[in-house]
């Protein structure tokens, strides 16, 4: 009886904490969610339908700010690009792969300003090109996300050179 007396409030406290955790996520969690969404929208399964592709590509745009600074020498991307260009690049990249998976690992998040976050991470792109070639590339990235209308949006993406030829 005594145990039950303490068990119920204890359970309620745990449930309350869990509810708080899920309904009021931390800024880090919100940022990680953006990476999960980007990974989901950029990735492509074999035999993906046109409808699914259009839906995913359409959702990539709102993850980015109006102007995005890219520094990706491997793909000859350097400078500031409008959001629509990012969508077009994503569409082109998806079309050149029959299967594509973009994953993000080891995110290190810092907040140099209240409404800006810097994230360094490892990205891994695997898949099969339309010509049947297997692709497996890993890169270290440095991204800046800005908080606009309570949404963390990608504003800078830069590849960090780990091996310099």
């Amino acid at each position, binding site marked *: 009886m005594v145990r039950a007396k303490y068990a119920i409030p204890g359970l309620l406290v745990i449930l309350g904490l869990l509810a708080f955790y899920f309904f009021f996520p931390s800024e880090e969690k919100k940022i990680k969610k953006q990476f999960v969404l980007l990974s989901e929208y950029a990735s492509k399964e074999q035999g993906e339908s046109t409808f699914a592709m259009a839906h995913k590509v359409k959702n990539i745009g709102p993850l980015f700010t109006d102007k995005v600074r890219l520094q990706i020498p491997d793909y000859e991307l350097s400078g500031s690009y409008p959001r629509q260009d990012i969508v077009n690049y994503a569409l082109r990249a998806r079309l050149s792969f029959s299967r594509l998976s973009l994953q993000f690992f*080891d995110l290190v998040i810092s907040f140099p300003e209240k409404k800006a976050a810097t994230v360094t991470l*490892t990205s891994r792109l695997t898949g099969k090109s339309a010509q049947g070639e297997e692709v*497996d*590339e890993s890169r270290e990235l440095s991204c800046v996300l800005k908080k606009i209308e309570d949404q963390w949006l990608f504003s800078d993406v830069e590849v960090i050179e780990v*091996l310099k*030829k």
Partner: protein
Amino acid sequence: MSPGIERIRQFFFPSLTRGFLLRVSVVAFSAYLFFGHLCIPIFIQGKSMEPTYRHGDFNFCWRLRYIFSNPKRNDIIMVRFTGTRVMLLKRVVALEGEWVEFRKGRLFVDGREIHEPYVRFPGDWNLSPRQVEKDCIYVVGDNRSTPIEDHHFGQTHLQRILGGPSW
């Protein structure tokens, strides 16, 4: 119940005593420390180190390999990105201050050709001479059959070396 059967039962279904829980905690913590930070299990993916290491091989990254010394030429090392989830497996071909170049697939360090018996899939790479910067090493994969543009190799900082494969 006979003592033998009782002992077997105790082995598979132990009583949740304080001593047992303590032993389990110590084993779990030690395993986490050892396999999470000292000897990290890895699956090799990619063909850049073939035939020395093949795609799909299993190994461990031994983190203490370079704790008291720096890598030497011909050592195989692991280069980290942001964390330890993804790493590159490469061979050291040149050290700090040395000049490295490729001429028709042959490796030259400080102008002298380096004998590379581990290269079974040679290529025709050409790379103009470049000096390895301070606190850096130059790493390349053993499989040189891919075009030079597609092979991920080059100079990296010593701080990025995570360790070496266990075998």
